[in-house]
């Protein structure tokens, strides 16, 4: 059986060892542990673990990582500056562009409408416009006099 199965207060005992229990709870648990045959050995085991961890030898790499990292940054990263993260897309960033686009379209529509309106005002009668395509050029004499004179005029 694990200590968790045996003792319902394992989590609190672990926090007690870490000195991470708030004071009222800490005092109450400490009092409980002194008289509890289940909690006391668990707490002792947790404390023993801490002692053994503290006895772990100090380990040192024995090399200077700073120069190695410097070299690797210079060669692999190819830049003397930290990499800037690519800009994330944000909806408000397109605001100015969208506004400019909308204004351009509106201006285009307005100018187009004004042009169309102006052309209507100055439009010549359709008959006059089509006169350029008739058989008789504008201002010319009638080429077939007989036709013209068929009525006797």
């Amino acid at each position, binding site marked *: 059986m694990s200590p968790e199965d045996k003792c319902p207060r394992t989590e609190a005992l672990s926090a007690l060892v870490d000195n991470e229990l708030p004071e009222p709870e800490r005092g109450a648990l400490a009092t409980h542990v002194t008289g509890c045959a289940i909690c006391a050995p668990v707490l002792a085991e947790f404390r023993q673990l801490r002692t053994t961890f503290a006895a772990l*030898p100090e380990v040192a790499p024995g090399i200077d990582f700073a120069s190695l990292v410097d070299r690797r940054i210079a060669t692999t990263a190819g830049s003397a500056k930290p*990499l800037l993260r690519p800009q994330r897309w944000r909806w408000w960033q397109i605001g100015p562009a969208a506004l400019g686009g909308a204004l351009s379209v509106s201006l285009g529509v307005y100018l187009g409408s004004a042009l169309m309106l102006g052309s209507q005002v100055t439009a010549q009668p359709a008959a006059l416009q089509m006169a350029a395509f008739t058989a008789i050029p504008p201002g010319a004499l009638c080429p077939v006099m007989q036709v013209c004179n068929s009525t006797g005029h």
Partner: protein
Amino acid sequence: MNSMLGSDGSDDDWVRRAQAGDLKAYSEMVKRHQDRVFRYLLRMLGSHEDALELTQEAFIKAWQALPQWQPEAQFRTWLFRIANNTALDALRRRKLVEFVPLEDSFDTPGSEPDPERQAQATQEVRQLEANMKKLAPEHRQILLLREVEEMSYEEIGRVLSLSEGTVKSRLARARAALIEIYARSRP
């Protein structure tokens, strides 16, 4: 420029300089934290060579991520977060589930005058190392951060992206699991 700051400036000052592209300032940060990062990675991975390689990798990742560092974050916990992710990536990539025993060169320092006591301490340390290799990585990492790096629950939470409540319960489970391994290994 560096002489203005001196090597005793706070981490934040040096990191800000490094953020601006000062590689010498970053070198100072590497010197300050390299032993802790190496020690953590060595005990997570159990291999001296892997720890050497991944320590460099972690520092390079940290350099590349420096623009995202915020002054509210303690540099040490921020760096450990990167180192921890680097270790987990390596464990997944290489499927290093087995924890290789530490090399003989990392014996307990001979400060203990009593040879019998020294031998017992060495035996306890070896047993702890052997039992740690049987722990799940998430239990091993949280125990190392607490017991070796002496981080608070809040700091561990930042490194592992966990709430303090989860840190508390996971630490208890990790300890219980380690004690269970001890119990099973006893003759």
